[in-house]
């Protein structure tokens, strides 16, 4: 009798288990069948032996143009968040408690908008890099901090340049450059009053800036962009910018970025006409000696 009951119970349990079935394949687990793996593998391995794709002959620039303009705000920008400054207060409180994400200057100019050429530009070809940039190539860029504020909220440099990470404070900092694209990541100890520690990015990307922070003073943040080419600008206090000697006669892609909205994708007004940039990008071909003027008006809603 006992064995019969045991059997019945096991049978019931077993049936219940059968009904519940095996654990379902959850979405986060990926399951690809063996045939697909094999096919994909063959496709991916095809052509491994041949030495890459043939070089596409690029059109050569025919001269140089200027890109200039101004970013202005229509409406009232949202208030910036307040920072909690609770370390080294004697030095750091002087830096203010405003987290300056959106900075609006005179004439409603939007400061710290980054604009750069995201097309592939041959970096060593004088047909593409104007001679005026040869001095820039070897120039040092400074990235300083004072009163526990990064003096460049949006830092930008050209990959072959060297950036000196300075400290104008009487307290020690560390500068953590968290690059996830191309350029190197670093986390420097920057001694008090240090004249600078050299950052050599050793790479670049067109994918936009990466965050910079200080682990000792966690409220300190900034962004850093390492560009593949020297054609970039960050808007000044009044929202204006100029990039000189940009290759003309070839179509170039530009990208527009700001810390709050990232790449500008909401509708903006460019020289009076409503425009929508896909991922903040637009293309333009200038002729030799041209000046492209971009007067961009952004609605305050872009920064919400």
């Amino acid at each position, binding site marked *: 009798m006992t*064995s019969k009951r045991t*059997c*019945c119970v*096991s*049978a019931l*349990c*077993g049936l219940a*288990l*059968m009904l*519940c*079935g*095996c654990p379902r*394949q*959850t979405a*986060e*687990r*990926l*399951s*690809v069948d063996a045939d*697909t*793996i094999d*096919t*994909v*593998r063959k*496709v*991916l*391995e*095809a*052509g*491994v*032996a041949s*030495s*890459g*794709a043939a070089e596409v002959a690029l059109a050569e620039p025919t001269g140089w143009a200027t890109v200039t303009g101004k970013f202005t705000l229509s409406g009232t920008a949202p208030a910036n968040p307040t920072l909690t400054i*609770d*370390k080294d207060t*004697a*030095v750091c409180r002087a830096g203010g408690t405003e987290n300056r994400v959106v900075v609006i200057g005179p004439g409603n100019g939007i400061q710290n908008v980054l604009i750069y050429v995201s097309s592939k530009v041959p970096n060593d070809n004088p047909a593409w890099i104007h001679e005026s940039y040869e001095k820039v190539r070897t120039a040092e860029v400074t990235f300083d901090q004072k009163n526990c504020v990064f003096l460049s909220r949006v830092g930008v440099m050209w990959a072959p340049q060297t950036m000196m990470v300075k400290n104008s404070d*009487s*307290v*020690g900092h*560390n500068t*953590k450059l968290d690059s996830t694209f191309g350029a190197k*990541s*670093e*986390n*420097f*100890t920057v*001694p*008090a009053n*240090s*004249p600078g*520690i050299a950052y050599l990015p050793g790479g670049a990307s067109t*994918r936009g800036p990466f965050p910079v922070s200080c*682990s*000792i003073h966690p409220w300190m943040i900034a962004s850093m962009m390492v560009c593949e080419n020297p054609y970039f600008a960050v808007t000044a206090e009044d929202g204006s910018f100029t990039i000189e000697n940009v290759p003309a006669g070839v179509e170039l892609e530009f990208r527009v970025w700001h810390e709050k909205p*990232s790449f500008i*994708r909401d509708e903006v007004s460019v020289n009076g006409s409503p425009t929508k940039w*896909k*991922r903040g990008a637009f293309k333009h071909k200038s002729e030799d000696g041209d000046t492209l003027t971009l007067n961009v008006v952004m609605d305050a809603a872009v920064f919400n």
Partner: protein
Amino acid sequence: MELPTRKAMKLSVIRHWFVSAVAVVALAGPMAGCSRNEATFNRNEAYVKNQERLTKETFSAERKADLDEVLSGLFGTPDRPIVPALGDIDVASVMDATKLHFAAGPVGRDERGRARGLYREHCAHCHGVTGDGGGPTALFLNPYPRDYRRGTFKFKSTPRQSKPTHEDLKRILIEGIPDTAMPSFRALPDNEIDALIHYVRYLSIRGESERSLVQYALFELEPADEEANIEEERLFDLTSGNRSDRAAELREYVGAIVQKWLGAEAEATAVAPPSWLANGAELSHEREVELLKHGRDLFYGKVAACVKCHGDSAIGDGQTTDYDDWAKELEPTVPGALDEYLALGRFVFPPRNVRPRNLRMGHYRGGRKPVDIYWRIFNGIDGTPMPALSEVLKQEGEEKIGVTHDDIWALVYYVRSLPYESISQPVAVEAAYQRERQ
């Protein structure tokens, strides 16, 4: 009591056998059915979410399916790993197919009696089958087991963002990591340790490739445009015509990651002994006392500023609210963001603050040898807020602010003396360096 008839007995036996058979089939069915399921890798949903939030774009279900296909085609499955073919790149010295076979798959023996499934036997319960640090025990451990997919390793002889050398990974496996749940695997034979190292690199390269492809899709591929009725560009489409261009591009991304591993050995920081030990000199007691004082000055001073995070008493309480780079990807300080990540499922753990080491304990996670501590100070600790204290050579006639090679050695001496230094009489800290208590 009536005795059962012969017929009734026969019926009872038949019924008994029938019920038993049902029981056996019913129990065996689900067991066999479930165990036949092959182990699978988890998709890195947290990173997809992170990049979606960064780019303000959507990584569609089709793209996820593409990503799964590409990764399986490149790396195979946990039971049948594949070494991606990358042309001229010497992939085998980073991940060797035979060694991967040895470490992968279910625990057991192969047809020649050699151990198989070493990773699942020794590592997967904490680090997870995927190497995502999401094994069944992971949530109960502090610190959480390492997620290899970021490609970041903390305890190594190479600079930040460089990969660890073979020797670095071996050291961790042999010694374990004190003060964490990571045990020592000293008892394993060399060839098994070696196979595990290759497999960890394989999981890391696979995970980093996944991240690289997610980023590539969101930054480089055309998004869908409903207004213009344009479909999104596929990450990988088996049916499309120009697959070979895309294949070459995908291989390039994976190749770049493998190259970083290949470069690791050459990037190890060579550490010369301090000048006072040059030419076999011995350290006098007086000199040692002097050095400890110098190290302490540096520790509390404005140049090295160790005190800022490790605290006034070096017990690791100077900076307790920061996060490591793994946790930062879950945006714990952005209001509302963390909930989005935690909603992704059981492989995303609530982030914990990263604590600076309590230097009074005498536990050194990356190793207790002087050179280990030198590497931690000189290169910093990758993936954490611990910065690198690079040496600045003092040039003649020019006063540079920084530390010298010997300064770093003095710090190493001091740090190693901390467990034995009296804590009841804290060192006076100069005013600018005093931590405010609020």
